[in-house]
Every structure is written in C-alpha cells, then in structure tokens.
C-alpha cells in the first residue's frame, strides 16, 4: 500500500467558505469559486503567497458552461498566477477527492498550505441538460442506453431495499419521507441553503404526493439542481497553530469505488465502497462510528441517506430507515445527520458539495453554526458519493489532534 502507511504529519483546516447555494445566473464557475475562496482566505490569517497549490473539483463544466481546463483560470482569478492548480472530476465526490489529495500532499510534506474547493452550475443549465449532465456519472454505454438517471439509480435501490429487508414499499417510503422532512427542516434554518425559509414544515403526505420523478421517488425525495461554490484552506497542523486560534484537524480520510450498478448487483444497497472508505477513515483516525458526534451524509435522495447511515456503521443493515423515523438521526438523536440541511435542504452544486460538507463540519466544530448547533460536538465526519457508488470519500475532522 506504499505511501499510505508512511508516517504522516498532522493537517488542519485554517478557513472555510461557501457561497449561497441556489440559482446564480450571473456568476460563472470561476466567480463562484473565487467568492467561496475569499471567504475562506479572509479567516485564515495568512498571506496569498502562503498558498502553494490549488485542488479544484468540478463535474460537468463542459456541459453546463462549455468550460473545461478551469484550474488555471481559477488560480489567475484569485491572484495566484502560476502556482500548480488542477481539476478533479469524480462526479458528486469531485471536491472530496480534491480535498483528500490535498490532505495527502500536505500530510506527506509536499506542500505546507493549499487551497481546495469546487464550483458547479446545474440550476442555471436547466433540468433537461442538468439531468443529462448528471447522468454522465452512470455507465455511459450499458446504463445510459436504458435511459437510467440518478433518481432512477436510487429508485432501483429503494425497491431493492424494500424487497431485501421485507419492508413494504409504501411503509419504506413513509420512513424515507422522514429524511426529506428532517433535511428540509434544517435547510430552512440555514441562510446559505437553497431552500432557506422554505419547506421547513413538510408532512409525510407532502413528500409522498409530490410529483413522481422515478417511481417510487418523488420530487421531495430528491435533492435539487444547484449553482454554488465552496472552498477550504488547509495546512500542516504546525503551520495552522502558528496562524489561527482554533484549527480543526483532519483525523482520517478514506476513498473507494466500484463499477456500474449491474456489476455491484445486490451490494448496491450495502454501498460496499462506502464501507471500505469509512473503515479506512476510522482506522486512520483511530476511531469507531460510536466516536462520531455528527455526520454530513450524501443525501442526494432520501434512500441514499438511509443506505449511507448503515454502510458507515451507525446502524445495522436494514435498520437505517427505522432510525430516521425514531429520531436517531435528528439533532438531539444518537447520530445527527445533515444538521446543515444536507443535499436535499441545502442544495447540491455537485463539484462544490464535498468541500461544502467540510465547511459545515468545521463551522459546527468551531461552534459557529448557530442555526442548528450539535451540542458539544468534537468530532464530525463527511460522506460524499460520486455516481452510482463509483467513487466514495469519507473524511473525519476533530477539534483535537489525532490521538
């Protein structure tokens, strides 16, 4: 496993930034990144020249904005002409992969301080192009030919879950609706969320009776199309402790992946890549699921959050749907999930989603997320899914250095 077991130095987050998520018809991909970057930079107490490289996540700039090769334009835009900059594409996990690569580079001493982030414009692209752009993350030949979409992937998973765990589909859908109700409630509290002040009081019937997208999934089972940007500045822990009062430490990271859904077969509802990635992160952090105070999970669809909560070890397989219904994943429960609203309530600007999860975790751990505080939280985790389990990234952050 080579370098992965080489002694690494501790790494910490200096600053985080996130644009308002929603509709940005007047801001380019570069503009959205720059806005998030400067929020992160302005709280990092460093000089621009301290940043040695940029790790940027973007999924479908080619299709939504006719733009690729974005990293050079981004570094130029923010005043960092000529530093090494690169774009990472891993569908919805793009900026989480970028974050992990950045973390590994700093941990192994290649750089002392780097910027990570992402931006995406799916709302502005419109539903038809947006849906096709998102569908580029399924198997291009064998899944695409059938017209499989992302709501379709998770609709397939929901029916399989219902069958496998012998929960009637109607009953399961009521439990899934609780994920939407919870995440919309929290998203409505978050001023940076796409649905700020909206849908904060959904009922089960509202979810079940909204427009069917891919049966059985309805509109309220799905996250929206979103424009937005996010950014994080990380540095070696020694560097961070010199410049800010309260660094948030990166305790563990993991990444895994898989082929098409038809290769994963029934494993799709056990999200095996997520099990592998989260176990990698727990091992590096020397922690177990019980040590995690809250988690930002990739709830692209209601059933996705349920499957994730099981694969990450918070609940047994087949029990995640009961857990949300019983309040375990609400703030105040045993493992609060998505106190910032998640993808469903906050929005999902794909390439920006991973680092916006880091933003949410860091704000919580610094006691700055006052809208929906997880009390006394010291360890938070992110979970980002790219494609139909094609890429999976988990990151654990905490207020103290690794034990």
């Amino acid at each position, binding site marked *: 496993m080579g370098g992965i077991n080489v002694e690494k130095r501790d790494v910490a987050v200096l600053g985080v930034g996130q644009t308002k998520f929603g509709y940005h018809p007047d801001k380019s991909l570069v503009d959205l990144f720059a806005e998030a970057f400067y929020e992160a930079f302005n709280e990092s107490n460093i000089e621009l020249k301290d940043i040695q490289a940029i790790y940027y996540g973007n999924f479908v700039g080619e299709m939504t904005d006719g733009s690729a090769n974005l990293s050079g334009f981004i570094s130029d835009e923010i005043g960092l002409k000529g530093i090494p900059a690169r774009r990472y594409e891993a569908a919805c996990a793009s900026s989480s992969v970028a974050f992990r690569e950045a973390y590994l580079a700093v941990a192994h001493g290649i750089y002392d301080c780097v910027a990570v982030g992402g931006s995406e414009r799916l709302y502005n692209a419109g539903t038809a192009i947006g849906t*096709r752009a998102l569908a580029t993350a399924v198997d291009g030949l064998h899944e695409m030919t059938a017209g499989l979409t992302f709501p379709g992937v998770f609709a397939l998973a929901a029916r399989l879950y219902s069958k496998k765990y012998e929960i009637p589909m109607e009953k399961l859908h009521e439990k899934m609706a609780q994920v939407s109700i919870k995440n919309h409630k929290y998203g409505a509290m978050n001023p940076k969320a796409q649905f700020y002040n909206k849908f904060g009081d959904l009922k089960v019937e509202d979810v079940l009776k909204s427009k069917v997208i891919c049966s059985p999934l309805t509109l309220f089972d799905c996250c929206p199309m979103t424009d937005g940007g996010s950014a994080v500045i990380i540095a070696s822990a020694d560097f961070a402790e010199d410049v800010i009062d309260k660094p948030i430490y990166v305790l563990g990271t993991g990444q895994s992946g898989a082929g098409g859904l038809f*290769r994963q*077969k*029934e494993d799709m509802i056990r999200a095996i890549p997520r099990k592998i990635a989260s176990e990698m992160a727990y091992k590096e952090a020397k922690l177990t699921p019980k040590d995690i105070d809250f988690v930002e999970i990739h709830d692209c669809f209601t059933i996705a959050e349920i499957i994730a909560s099981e694969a990450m070890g918070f609940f047994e397989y087949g029990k995640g749907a009961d857990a949300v219904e019983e309040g375990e994943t609400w703030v105040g429960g045993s493992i609060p999930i998505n106190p910032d609203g998640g993808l469903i309530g906050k929005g999902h600007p794909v390439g920006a989603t991973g680092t916006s999860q880091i933003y949410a975790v860091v704000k919580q751990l610094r006691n700055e997320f006052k809208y929906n505080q997880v009390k006394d939280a010291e360890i938070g985790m992110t979970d980002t899914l790219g494609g139909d389990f094609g890429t999976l990234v988990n990151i654990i952050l905490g207020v103290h250095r690794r034990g």
Partner: protein
Amino acid sequence: MVEESESRKITYTEYFDALLEGKLLGYKCKDCNAYTCPPKAVCDNCGSQKVERVELSGKGRIKTFTTTYVAPVGYDKEVPYTVAMVELEEGPWIIGRLEIENADEIGQDLIGEEVVVEGKEFPTEMFYPDKKRRVVPIFRLVK
C-alpha cells in the same frame, strides 16, 4: 495459453448487434466458471483474463425497476419508460427496459418475475458513445 479465437474481445458493437438478433453475448471464465455480461476486460468474478466467449440464455428474473417520468435531454420523447435490473440465469445482472405499461400499478410484485431479453434500436443522442444508434436491452415478461 488462451486460443486466439476465444480471447478475442467482444466489442460493444458486436454485443449490441447480437442483442438485436435476440442473442446475449458474454464470457465464461476458465478459472472460476463464472459468467461475465455485459463483456468486460476480465472475468467479473475473479479478474482472470482466461475467458471464453459464450451465448447466454437471455433468461432471468427482475430484481428491481423504476418508471422514469423525467428524462435527460435526448431521452425525453421516450417517457414514461421503465428501467429494470435483471439477474440472468447464469448469474450476471444486466440493465434494460421492461416493456410493460403498468409497472407502477403492479409494484413490488414485479420483482422475481421471469423475463427474456432482446435488443431494440433507438435513435442515438449527442453524447451517447455509439454515434449510429442506441441499442436498448428490452425485457419481456415470460408469462
């Protein structure tokens, strides 16, 4: 050594041509006996390169399905359509469309139903890898 005729890779054009004739092509592994379909570079079960070309039965059972009402650009004229995953008799799972009008009315009872697969040609779209056509595996209920 694997014989040349057996090791020759099944291209996607060949796979879809066969499907249009009602034949489902894949590989059988000489090391572990597992079947791989659709074809890929190695045995899907054990990673061996020692695979031989075979024609599968084309029979299987529905494992899950969804009816799509909101389609991507290029597929919008086809809605609503029902996408299904089928477990073939030989083990592999494949994705295609279920030719049935009332999948949502039947609901979960469709799971486990026997189907056979054949190919149907659709117009391609701007981003699809095959620029001449799009061959969709179509599942038909046996009973």
